[in-house]
């Protein structure tokens, strides 16, 4: 059991921002948080005066660990067919990729792994399908035989728009048009309804019975509206991903109560689909009452740049705590894991990041990253200043170089 005291804590939850706050952690969970926390006798105390604490960051749309040390042999996308509802992103995840460690070091403690990612530079058409498989919510600090999975079936990834139709159209396969894309989804939905369900379509059934949401890749306003029409037709739960032109149809998205995973917000206008990209998109969607999470779409932009993307929103006028929520509690809510992660509240996982300064600025060094109460990255030696030690345990175990798995 240990307590971190006197820090500025952005809880992203019901406690708001706590000045000179204390975070009490035991067995991987937050036992208590606030300004008047009673500290048990056997508790180690870490003074963090002048430091800021935020919940571990969450990227709700990531292809982390799926690039296999080079682009040509990446496992991010199964290009052999346009319809792959039975794939699991976890099966393409390599926990030993360098980027996984970088992600932990950057304070991104939870991601939703999604299938369906390919190179999108220059003239190369992104080689993605229409129904790409099922994503999982994992913690990035990998121990033992793999990542801790918070939610195995977290959403069925699909894609609408220019990329699937061009990639398959080039191969003279369906879809060569947006009509073809929707027809493929509709056909898969019908398969999901069959009484003698083929195993391959079991996640279509899960989608139709509201066990998992659809995560639909959309850039253009027209594709957003197409996704909403499909939802009307089949009545599934929907989360929109990328949502580049969302600001053009923000009231419609808001009326339907659809959550949005927006980004990467720093993309340039690569191709016609992105020609109307605006850095203010996430702000406008939020102003319409939509639950917005930011994504770096790792490796399009590395996941550990997530806090800087949120910082850009602050620069463009979003309230600081609201911007912070787009990379903490909002993605947790969208992914259905807000009971465990995303905010610093009693009973939740002790996933948090300690900063010396503003957490949303690039220049601010990360002091330490904690996942499930364990320090997984960082140096704390010099932090141990005026330490009071109660009970038998020494505070030393937090000092020195943090081990990074």
């Amino acid at each position, binding site marked *: 059991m240990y307590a971190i005291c006197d820090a500025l804590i952005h809880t992203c939850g019901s406690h708001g921002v706590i000045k000179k706050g204390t975070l009490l952690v035991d067995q991987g969970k937050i036992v208590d948080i606030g300004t008047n926390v009673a500290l048990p006798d056997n508790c180690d105390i870490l003074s963090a005066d002048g430091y800021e604490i935020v919940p571990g960051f969450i990227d709700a749309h990531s292809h982390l660990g799926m*690039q*296999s*040390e*080079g*682009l040509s042999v990446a496992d991010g996308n199964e290009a052999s067919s346009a319809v792959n509802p039975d794939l699991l992103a976890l099966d393409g995840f390599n926990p030993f*990729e*360098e*980027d996984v460690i970088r992600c932990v070091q950057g304070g991104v403690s939870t991601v939703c792994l999604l299938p369906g990612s390919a*190179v999108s*530079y*220059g*003239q*190369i058409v992104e080689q993605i399908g229409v129904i790409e498989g099922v994503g999982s919510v994992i913690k990035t600090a990998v121990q033992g035989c793999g990542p801790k999975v918070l939610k195995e079936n977290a959403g069925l990834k699909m894609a609408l728009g220019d990329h699937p139709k061009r990639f398959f159209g080039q191969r003279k396969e369906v879809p060569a048009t947006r009509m073809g894309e929707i027809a493929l989804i509709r056909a898969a939905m019908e398969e999901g309804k069959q009484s003698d369900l083929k195993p391959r379509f079991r996640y279509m059934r899960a989608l139709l019975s509201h066990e998992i949401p659809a995560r639909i890749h959309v850039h253009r306003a027209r594709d957003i509206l197409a996704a909403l029409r499909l939802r009307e037709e089949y009545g599934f739960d929907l989360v929109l991903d990328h949502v580049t032109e969302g600001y053009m149809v923000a009231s419609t998205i808001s009326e339907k109560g659809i959550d949005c995973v927006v980004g990467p917000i*720093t*993309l*340039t*206008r*690569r*191709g*016609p689909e*992105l*020609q*109307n990209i605006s850095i203010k998109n996430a702000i406008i969607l939020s102003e319409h009452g939509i639950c917005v999470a930011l994504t770096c779409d790792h*490796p*399009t*932009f*590395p996941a550990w*740049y997530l806090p*800087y993307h949120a*910082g*850009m929103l*602050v*620069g*463009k006028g979003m309230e600081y705590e609201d911007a912070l929520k787009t990379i903490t509690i909002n993605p947790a809510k969208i992914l259905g894991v807000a009971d465990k992660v995303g905010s610093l509240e009693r009973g939740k996982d002790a996933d948090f990041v300690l900063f010396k300064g*503003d957490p*949303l*600025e*690039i*220049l*601010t*060094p990360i002091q330490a990253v904690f996942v499930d109460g364990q320090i997984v990255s960082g140096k704390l030696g010099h932090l141990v200043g005026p330490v009071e030690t109660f009970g038998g345990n020494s505070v030393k175990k937090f000092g020195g170089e943090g081990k990074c798995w």
Partner: protein
Amino acid sequence: MLVVNGGHLVTVTGEVIENGKVLIENGKFVAIGRDIDSPADAQVIDAQGKWIVPGFIDCHCHVGIVPEGLDWEYSDVNEATNATTGFVRAIDGIDFNDKGFQDALDGGVTAMIIHPGSSNVIGGTDVALKAAGENLSDRILRNPAGVKMAWTAGSRKAPQPFKDTPYPSTRMGIASILRGYFTLARDYMNASDEKKREIEKSPFERFTLEVLSMVLRREIPARIHSMTPADFYPLFRLQDEFGFEFTVDHGDEAYMVANELSSRRIPVNYGPLMGDRWIPMFPHSRPDSPKLLDEAGVLVSFQTDHPVVSIRDLRLQAAICVKYGLPADRALRMLTINPATIMGVEKRLGSIETGKDADFSIFSGHPLLVRSQVEAVFINGIRVK
């Protein structure tokens, strides 16, 4: 006459002047300091509490030549019809009304080198220009500003639509093409007019040989897309053989040969840093590269390779390196005077000094903070944002 009043005045080559004042006339800085008299009729810009910095410079981007928001069919960046296309010129492929130029101003970038793409061993000539200006000829700083060459995967394989084009498939192939062309160019530049006609065969060949002659005469550098020691060592050997100057563009692993780059006075135009898609291909790349290169005495600048990373975010490339130990004042040099030097226009741009072009930005806060906003940009003393 224009006077900018107050603020933290980052001159770059001199000290930061608190509550500094700049006087601008005819597009140039004419006085800089705390106690300077400005004429009563001068237009005054109040910059109290703001940061005034020289216009940032991006020495490697494809603004306007890779069009914003259009398909690759509209792109003019890669003349991938041959492994060597030294006869093309970037300036002929640029849409000067492209939105990318506005992105540059949004990030306080006032000058840039626009390159042809990396799909050829010899890709064509670069152009250095300002991000805005009344007419095109006034915007151009240097043309040609160098010759684009590529020593990487891109130049070892023709891009998709041209995949039947004959290309080298190894670094040995790239080296042999360059050695062959430089040898031909050396013969060409020393030949009589009659002999020249004999060597060149066609106008295309003449354009390429003339450009390479300029490189051999050290009038312009080769600007070479290169990343790893496996790229640099053959280039060092070619440099020893032919005596040309070159810049390392990208240089992901350049720090590994920092001392050799330093002794050869080869600058590194580093980046881009925020779209790290190619990190897996360069396992030794590290974000403190600019710091290590700088400490070894290499001239370093930052680049976005726009549209790989938005030219608007050039300053954030520097911020990332500061996070990893690069001193902030060195980082600011790598955004201003260093790229001006690499561009070859250090007498005109890159710092706030008397006599230099009045290209500068006013930031709401420190220019390396994400949250700071570019509030105004001036080029030749004229407000362009």
